[in-house]
């Protein structure tokens, strides 16, 4: 291991042995950006929860270093107790106080919150989480999703400087996620609270995260900016089927009538569902590889609005699934991935360097 000296970041270098029969050893050395959302991704049992617990100081026998910005929470000689670390923690199993009602659980947090940094308002959180009507119930009287929402609210109301969230939305339906995600997104960007976010949903991760860490068997196997990781062929994501790229550009046109906006990047434009973005603002869009098809010529009688002229940069077939091939395209300098059948690639005689039309059925706005 090397010694790092970046000051403005969450620096975690940890070794943590799990007593027990499966000799699990978490051994990581991470520099996590101190803004935005860092996704923690990995199969069940890979050590995600253990890592969060180490950062929070809940594992006492941890060897290593934990430092947020200039504050050392833990090294070979210090160990800051968990209650002195300015974190918010959403436990995987909610972990509400059983003797307190939902409201009292929140009050517990509010009473002990950092008064100097009141970024998060009670009314906002309650309304967002939709827990108004269950506030007087005890945890045993809440549904699974209600418990989880109260737990998120509780962790937010402590006004943390670092938010650790262990699969916070797993028990929630999509509609609710759609309400809560943008708030979390906004919050972390506005309040400058870095979030470490464990999730099994690649969708959620891509939507929320700027940085990404993939764990396997206690080791970091992939780490980096989400854009970089997503654009790379052959990363762990190939496992997760829907590889994507994120493109950044400026909003160049908006049409209220059609509910669409256009993003301009690398001399190309791409249409997307209009949201609250301003004309001229910078925006990130996600393009999933499975939404991209290729054609040799441009077809104007198709319902697919986005047809970009691109060159084929690379083609990789998936060893596990020979029926599919991943094609890396360059739209100017911007990489785009297309996942097509091997048969199509053959029929169209696709070659590296060839110029083709990338038809993009739908795009998702990221921020």
């Amino acid at each position, binding site marked *: 291991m090397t010694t790092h000296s970046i000051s403005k970041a969450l620096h975690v270098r940890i070794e943590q042995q799990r007593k027990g029969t499966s000799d699990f050893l978490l051994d990581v050395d991470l520099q996590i950006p101190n803004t935005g959302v860092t996704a923690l991704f990995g199969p069940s049992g890979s050590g995600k929860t253990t890592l969060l617990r180490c950062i929070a100081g809940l594992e006492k026998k941890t060897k290593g270093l934990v430092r947020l910005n200039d504050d050392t929470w833990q090294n070979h000689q210090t160990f800051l*107790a*968990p*209650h*002195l670390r300015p974190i918010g*923690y959403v436990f995987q199993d909610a*972990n509400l*106080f059983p003797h307190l009602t939902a409201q009292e659980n929140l009050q*517990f*947090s509010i009473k002990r919150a950092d008064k100097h940094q009141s970024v998060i308002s009670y009314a906002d959180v309650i309304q967002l989480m939709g827990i108004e009507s269950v506030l007087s119930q*005890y945890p045993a009287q809440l549904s699974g999703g209600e418990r989880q929402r109260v737990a998120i609210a509780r962790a937010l109301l402590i006004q943390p400087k670092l938010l650790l969230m262990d699969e916070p939305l797993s028990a929630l339906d999509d509609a609710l996620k759609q309400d809560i995600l943008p708030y979390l997104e906004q919050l972390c960007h506005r309040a400058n609270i870095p979030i470490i976010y464990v999730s099994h949903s690649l969708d959620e991760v891509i939507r929320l995260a700027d940085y990404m860490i993939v764990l396997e068997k206690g080791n970091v196997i992939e780490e980096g900016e989400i854009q970089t990781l997503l654009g790379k062929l052959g990363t762990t994501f190939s496992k997760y089927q829907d590889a994507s790229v994120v493109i950044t550009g400026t909003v160049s046109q908006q049409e209220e009538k059609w509910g669409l906006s256009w993003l301009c990047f690398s001399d190309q434009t791409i249409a997307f569902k209009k949201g609250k973005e301003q004309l001229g603002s910078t925006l990130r869009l996600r393009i999933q590889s499975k939404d991209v098809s290729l054609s040799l010529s441009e077809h104007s009688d198709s319902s697919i609005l986005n047809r970009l002229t691109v060159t084929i940069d690379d083609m990789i077939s998936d060893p596990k699934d020979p029926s599919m091939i991943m094609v890396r395209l360059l739209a100017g300098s911007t990489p785009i991935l297309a996942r097509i059948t091997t048969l199509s690639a053959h029929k169209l005689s696709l070659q590296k360097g060839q110029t083709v039309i990338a038809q993009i059925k739908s795009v998702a706005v990221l921020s």
Partner: protein
Amino acid sequence: MLFSPEDIGAIWLTLKLASLVTLLLILISTPIAWWLARTQSWLKGPINAIVAMPLVLPPTVLGFYLLLFLGPQGALGQFLNQLGFSPLPFSFAGLVVASMVYSLPFVVQPIQNAFSAIGEGPLEAAATLRASPWDRFIHVVIPLAKPGYISAAVLGFAHTVGEFGVVLMIGGNIPDETRVISVQIYDHVEALEYDQAHSLSLLMISFAFLVLAFLYSVQRRQKNSAMSGGLL
């Protein structure tokens, strides 16, 4: 009148003694129980056993040893004497100390079990919510251990009220100072004043019954509101 002035003195004394002893016991048992519930040390077994020791000796015999120990010849007695304390035996303070020794296990055990049952979850949650160890203890551990505390208080109080062997030995049956109801009833029985003994016993039982029934009912009501109906 049903009760002689002596009886009434004994009643007051008993209430004073039992309340004080229960209160003090709960205070000192709390750290002991906490340590016993949480420690991983090998000392846990032995210390647990030591706490239960006072139970094993017959009360009068325990009282006898306490007398030896606290008396002018006893180790603790001499030590306390050097510190300028007046001797404990035959005083109310002595009764309090002796009753505490004897009732200690009944107070420690329920609290300890309640502490053990809490588990890490709520404590960890509280820790991530900036609650210091003390804050966690007061606002999480103690409320969650409430049934244990109620048991502890009931057993401790009742046992102190009914105790008698130790009290007689250490207290010396001095009216208004160490003659509690149990001793008074015993004296009535010995003096063949069975009527007085019956009425004092009845009073004691009724009073204790009312207090305990009230205590338990309060506990039940609170629990009902927090939990849903039962299976089985």
